[in-house]
Every structure is written in C-alpha cells, then in structure tokens.
C-alpha cells in the first residue's frame, strides 16, 4: 500500500509539473529571435529620431536610447554566453526603453488624440475587403464540408466577383460602398442558407445528444429516489423529461432546449450534477 501511495504521489507531482516544463522548453526554442527583434526596434528608433530631431535629440530621449542600445548590446553578449535568463532581461529592458521613446515621439509629433480603431473613418477599405474575403472562404469551407457547395456555388462565385470589383474600385479611387453593402447582404444570406440546409442534420445531432443525456438522467433520478431525496422535485424532473421527449418527437428543438434549462435547475435542487459521464 505504501508503494501504491508513493506511486500516486509521483503521478500527482509529474502531472502538475509536466505542463510547465513543456512551456519552458518551448520558450527556449530560438533565443536569437530576441536579438533580431531588438536590433530591428533599435534601427527603427534611430530612423524615427533622425526624422524628428535630426541632431537635436532631447536629453531625456537620449538617455532612454542609450539605455535601450546598451541593453541590445548586452543581449547580444548574453546570447553569446548562452545566458538565456540575462538575455530575456536585456530584451525586455531594451524594448521597454524603445517603447517609451516611440510613445514620446508620437505624442509630441502629432496631436495626441487617441484614435479608436472602431471609428469607421479610420478603417482602410483594403483591410475590410481582406476580412470579408476570409469570411467568404470560411463559409465556403463549411458549405463544402456539408456537400452543399453545389447549392451555393452561384452565390460564392458572385461573392468573389464582387470582391474583385471592389478591389478594382478601391484602386481607381471609386466609391465601393454600394458593392460592399451588397457583399455583406450576400454573405448573410449564404450563412442563413447553409444553416437552413443543414438544419435537419443538426436537429438529429441535438436529438441524439438529448437522448443520450436523458437516459443517464433517468438513472440518476432512480438513484436519487433510492436515497430518499425530495420526491416532489424528482417527480417534477420526470415530468420535464417526458415533456422534452415529447417536444423532440415533434421536432420542436428550441422548445426542448428551454424545458431542458428548467430541468437543470430541478436537478441541481435534487443534488444531481449536470455533468453526467
């Protein structure tokens, strides 16, 4: 028994420690990327300072830059010495200094009005079209997966030709808003169509889920009865189960979902966990 207890403790410790070990190992994958990023940031900051101040760099920024640049050199040295922990510290120190400089530059060079990206005027149309194209591709994959691509083929062709047209309009500085609205409407309609076309399959999947689940709840309720739990609540639960089954037989899935939510509350009152395995 002592051996078994010892084994269990080992399993417990290994189970707890192993994920952190894996993450740690992954973090050490290629420390040289830290240097690449830091050198790039250093170079960008020098460019920005040259553009903004030429040779008249304010003292506070100079101090920050020196600190950052020294950290980059130290990072290079730490990596050569294979001192990863020191390299990480150097990296964070350098990037923190450069971050402070870039924020000072951007605050002083232009009016410091924070622009929220959600403001429509700040969105570029190209990005919007890129995102919409990705959305079209996602819906196309779903349609393919459920073998409904033939049904939606014309819509997808139209969507791609609209995207092409919008891109052309952007390039020639025309207003593409009408086509964008049309594309948005088309995508919503495709999504709705896909949902409707696979509704039967989906209903069956939900019915199967309920059937599997309700059988287990039946068993749990019988056990609860043997344990002399609140009989009124048990009866109520049984009634709700009957109601769900009836609704499922009539294909009223949404109503069944609502009754199921009530059932969960009753089960909790009885002391039955909803996570039944």
């Amino acid at each position, binding site marked *: 028994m002592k051996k078994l*207890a010892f084994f269990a403790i080992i399993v417990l410790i290994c189970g707890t420690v192993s994920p952190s070990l894996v993450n740690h190992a992954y973090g050490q994958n290629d420390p040289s990327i830290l240097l690449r990023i830091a050198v790039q940031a250093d170079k960008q900051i020098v460019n920005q300072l040259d553009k903004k101040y030429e040779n008249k760099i304010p003292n506070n920024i100079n101090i920050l830059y020196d600190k950052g640049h020294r950290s980059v050199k130290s990072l290079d040295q730490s990596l050569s010495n294979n001192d990863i922990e020191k390299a990480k510290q150097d990296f964070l120190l350098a990037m923190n200094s450069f971050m402070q400089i870039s924020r000072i530059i951007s605050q002083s060079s232009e009016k410091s009005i924070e622009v929220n990206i959600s403001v429509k005027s700040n*969105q570029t149309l190209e990005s919007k079209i890129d*995102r919409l194209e990705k959305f079209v591709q*996602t819906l196309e994959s779903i349609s393919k997966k459920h073998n409904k691509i033939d049904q939606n083929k014309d819509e997808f062709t139209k969507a791609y030709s609209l995207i092409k047209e919008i891109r052309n309009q952007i390039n020639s500085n025309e207003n593409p808003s009408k086509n964008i609205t049309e594309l948005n409407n088309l995508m919503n309609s495709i999504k709705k169509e896909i949902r409707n076309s696979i509704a039967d399959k989906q209903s069956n999947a939900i019915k199967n889920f309920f059937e599997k689940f309700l059988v287990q709840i039946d068993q749990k309720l019988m056990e609860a009865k043997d344990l002399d739990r609140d009989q009124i609540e048990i009866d109520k639960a049984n009634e709700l189960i009957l109601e769900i089954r009836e609704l499922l037989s009539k294909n009223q899935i949404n109503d069944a979902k609502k009754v199921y939510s009530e059932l969960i509350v009753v089960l909790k009152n009885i002391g039955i966990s909803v996570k039944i395995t």
Partner: protein
Amino acid sequence: MISLIEPIQLENSLGDDGILFVRNDCILDTMVKTPLLVASMIIVAALLPIQSSFSSPRDLDLIIYPDGSTHISTEIDVDPFLTDYKVNLFGSTIDNLVVLGDDGFLLDVDVMDGTALIQTFGSSVITIEYDIHDLVSKQGRLWTFSLDSPSDFTLLLPKNSAIVGMTNLPLNMEIINEQNQLTLSSGSTEIDYFFSTNTISNTTEEIVNEEDNSLNIIIVGIIGGIIVIALISVIIIAKNKQKNVKAIEKVVTIQQNNILDLETIFKLKPDLREDDKELIKFIFDNDGEVLESELRKNFLQPRTTMWRAVKRLEREGVIEIEKKDLQNLVKLRKNMEEDN
C-alpha cells in the same frame, strides 16, 4: 475506590516521566484510510489535465490587418455534457462571427457585451472565428496592440510593420508572406509598431553581416563539408541501388522523382476513406506538402480529428510527417506500396 474510567493505553503510552507517546506508524491506516487517500490522489492526478483543458483555448491565432482590425481564430475544448458554453470575446465590436461545433455544424450563438453564449449540445471542441476592432489603438504614427490572453497565442503582424516596443517575451518568430508572426505566451502583452519599409528580413541580413568573418569561414566550411558528404552519399546510394534492382522488383513499389498522381495513389490504395481522399487531393493541389494546421483550417476539423486522419494516412503509407518550425508538415510519399 477503583476508577471505572481508565486512560486508554495508559501503561504502554506513558513513559517514566509520565509523557504521553502516540504511535504514528499506522496513523494513515487507522485515521485517514490509505486506500481512500490513494484513490483520491489518483483521481486528482487524472483530473488535473482535464480541468485545465476544458474551457481554455487550445489554439489561439490572431491576424492584425493594416487598419488595426484583428481576425481571431480559436479552438476551445468544452464539456460535451453541457448544452451551452459562455466565452468572453476580446472586445465588443464583433464582425463576421462564425462558431462551429465538432462536426462542422454552425452553432447558435448570442453575443452580448463582449460575451458569447454558444449552444454547444454535445460538441467537445468548438471553433470560433471573428473580427474585432478593440485590440489595436493608434496614436500619431504609432500603433499599439494590447491583449490579456488566457493562453499562448500566435500574432501575425501586418506587412511592413516594424516592432518598436513590447512587454512580453516572444516564444517564437517566423516570417510568413513577408509578415512577422510572433508566438507569445499567455498574460498581458503590449506591442508597439510603426509602418516602415524596412522589414525584419533586412535586419536579419544586417545581423548576419555584422558577424565576424571567422564565423563566415566556419559556416562556409560546414556547408562545403555537408555538400561533399551529400555528394559521396548520393554516389554510394546510386551504386547500392544498381545492386539491389532485382530485390526491389519483388515488392510492387512505384518510385519516381516527382510525387505520384492522384489516380495512381487511389489505385494503389483502393480502400481509402472518402474524407481521407479529400485530404490527399488538397495536399496534392498544394505541391504535395502542407502544414497540418492548414489542413485543419481548410477542412474545419478539430486538432484531434485531423491528427487521427493524418496518422491514418501515415499508417497507410500515403504520407509522411516532418517537423517544420514546431509544426507538422504533411508530405505525400514519393514511394508507395500497393495494397493487396
């Protein structure tokens, strides 16, 4: 008068000085019940990974567009015995939301104040994709990405963006289509970037140029050595092949420099499943090799399902798996044995 109540184990437990000694050798057996302790420990150990896996994203990929909007793609393990799953989105300005269950079904979802209530109904893995406008802000020419992530994630930055500050250590970085992709750990992350014509590849070149000439000589030496070894190996292999032609004839093997065409593969492997054939077609159309993650994205399959499919094809001898940048690269095999 005789006392009716006597201290338990009075004679054995009291020493000469009247100090109470308690035997603790069997305290586990007598008080805690060792079997119970062992059983609970095993249960706790077994449940630990499950608890940490439910409700936490197994994959989280972010793409930042030039206007600062962000596409989020995540896969989450959920309890298959629950009907709903509530997930906090990374903001409230959501576009193009798609939630898929295990079988690629579009799941019903209600979004309210940055929270999505998803009707999962038996799904064990859900895939969520959406666009969001809350993660990047702009001040002057400086763009700042901020996220408090519940798990490790990948972040694809826009083209021509140059990082000038960050608060988190990157786990990895690679360049995809001239864009920097960072892998970052969970927790709070802030990244500042400018748009610039100098990309990371230029910097990499500069770093290489800055290195000592001696290092270059060593590298040239190593590369030269590898080429010589490769040439010798090719000559040896070619000679061995000539010797073994007769032996090879016994096995029905089709070998050629390029990958086999689809028709030949399906002829050699007539018992392949239809969905596996689709995978093969996709790999074939991508010059015979593709990352497993691309397969997952294209076929909208959960990681485990796709992993099983890939392993199945590997067992069939149709593909081979190689590691590339910590990812699985799935390649069609050039040599394939016919199924009997």
